[in-house]
């Protein structure tokens, strides 16, 4: 027993089981994806050339970013006031607001997407409502708009939680102080509160955008061929065509996009912290 616990003196050993698991279940498979994208069916860049030479692939590529972008913006617009409200109400009301965020967060995304399929179909609840109110039907399912609506709802909790975590720690006396010094409410908000809440905005936006880029279930079930996203395209190549090379290349492109984005975001937030003198 003494020997076993002397491991504690070399803490790196404690992380070995996790690292091993990651090597087997993450590193090895990712290596396979990368390898196959360059070797299947022939060694070379064929799969990447194919990807970038097909206009449809590029359309899907840009659409993926576009959809993820819109979802991020919508989540921010919906989530910011909501997160603020969570800090501004009494404990009981706050509990209710938290519940409304946590429940969808824990309910399986597949189930929530099922609900959206039922709601968004052409003669679904939403379109019936529109017709009853005298409006034209809107085609929602199998369109990027439908995908954006569904994804925004599924990903909103990922925006609200980091926002709330940051806003909760903002010292409201700073805002009060600004106002007592004569600043108008809008000015106090823009100059004091908003900058202080920015880490939450960045954190939430990055999480939502990255999750949005790689989102699979909602686009697969709500989107049709006209709302295909990169994940679905890669899945089709592998599961329906058994084309490991092309599917792998799409996977690598998706992965690299995500990593580049993260790197940019990391650099950006670091610089911002330096300007404001760091948050700690």
């Amino acid at each position, binding site marked *: 027993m003494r020997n076993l*616990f002397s491991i504690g003196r070399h803490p790196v050993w404690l992380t070995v089981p996790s690292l091993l698991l990651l090597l087997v*279940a993450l590193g090895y498979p990712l290596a396979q*994806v990368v390898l196959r994208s360059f070797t299947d069916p022939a060694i070379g860049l064929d799969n990447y050339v194919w990807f970038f030479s097909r206009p449809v692939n590029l359309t899907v590529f840009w659409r993926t970013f576009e959809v993820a972008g819109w979802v991020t913006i919508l989540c921010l617009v919906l989530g910011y006031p909501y997160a603020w409200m969570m800090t501004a109400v009494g404990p009981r009301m706050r509990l209710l*607001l938290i519940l409304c965020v946590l429940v969808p967060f824990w309910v399986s995304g597949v189930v929530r997407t099922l609900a959206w399929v039922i709601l968004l179909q052409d003669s679904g609840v939403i379109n019936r409502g529109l017709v009853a109110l005298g409006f034209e039907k809107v085609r929602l399912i199998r369109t990027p708009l439908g995908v954006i609506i569904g994804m925004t*709802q599924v990903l909103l909790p990922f925006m609200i939680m980091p926002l709330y975590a940051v806003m909760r720690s903002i010292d409201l006396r700073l805002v009060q102080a600004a106002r007592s010094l004569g600043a108008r409410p809008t000015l106090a908000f823009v100059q004091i509160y908003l900058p202080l809440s920015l880490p939450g905005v960045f954190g939430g936006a990055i999480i939502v955008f990255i999750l949005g880029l790689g989102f699979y279930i909602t686009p697969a079930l709500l989107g049709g061929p006209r709302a295909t996203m990169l994940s679905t395209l890669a899945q089709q190549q592998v599961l329906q065509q058994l084309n490991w090379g092309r599917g792998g290349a799409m996977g690598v492109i998706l992965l690299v996009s995500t990593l580049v984005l993260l790197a940019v975001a990391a650099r950006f937030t670091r610089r911002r912290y330096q300007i404001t003198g760091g948050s700690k």
Partner: protein
Amino acid sequence: MNRLQRTLISLFCACVALWLVAPTLVIVPISFAEKKSLAFPPDGFSLQWYANLIQSPDWSGSILNSLKIAVIVSVVATVIGTLAAMGITRMKAGSGGVVRAILITPMIVPGVVLAIGIYAVYLDHQLVGTLTGYVLAHSMLAIPFVIIAVGANLAVFDARLETAAASLGASRLVTFFTVTLPLIGPGILSGLLFAFVTSFDEVIVALFINSPRMKTLPVQIYSSMTRDSDPTVAAVGSLMFALTTLTIAAALWIGTRRRRS
């Protein structure tokens, strides 16, 4: 902020809250549909889809599979994830940060990329549709959540308490169980819960690596949705929704009561 602005924002937030919760509720009436269709609103009333959950070997089997996998995954991921979190906090800041960054990569790798790679590897090693296969993949996906949950708890944990216990003659083992564990218990517990849910809800990797031999509930729901228009998906969804809401509500309620007393 004047009253009007505040009312407007309150109204807006009420709408957002509704938007978060209400859409999912349309599955409840569908789950009582009489016909095998997902058209809304449904006609008639029946409990046949709830009965089907128990009677059909595809549904009952997938529920049991998912529970089994999730339980094993939550134990595996919590144990090795907690060890890793403890290791990271004891390492030098720089190297600890690197290890931590590596261990949370499963969170940022797009699901489909992982799924393609895992499918390729599992086909080669005949792990498709096996318990080992699911546990390996899901534990890897769950480890980041455990590390974050336990790590957050360890960050506020006062290491001097351990030293004090040791100086009073407690062995490392006794120290761990009497001092460390109770203090980081809440973190471990939430890590365990996260790991369980990560596995129980995981669908992308499972969609690639499932086989009739072993199928998980999310895969069964997904394939039933695309293949069957079967209201059983609404029945299982409604049950999951009710269960989750009750659990969270209970947890929040207990949490606030404890804080008050």
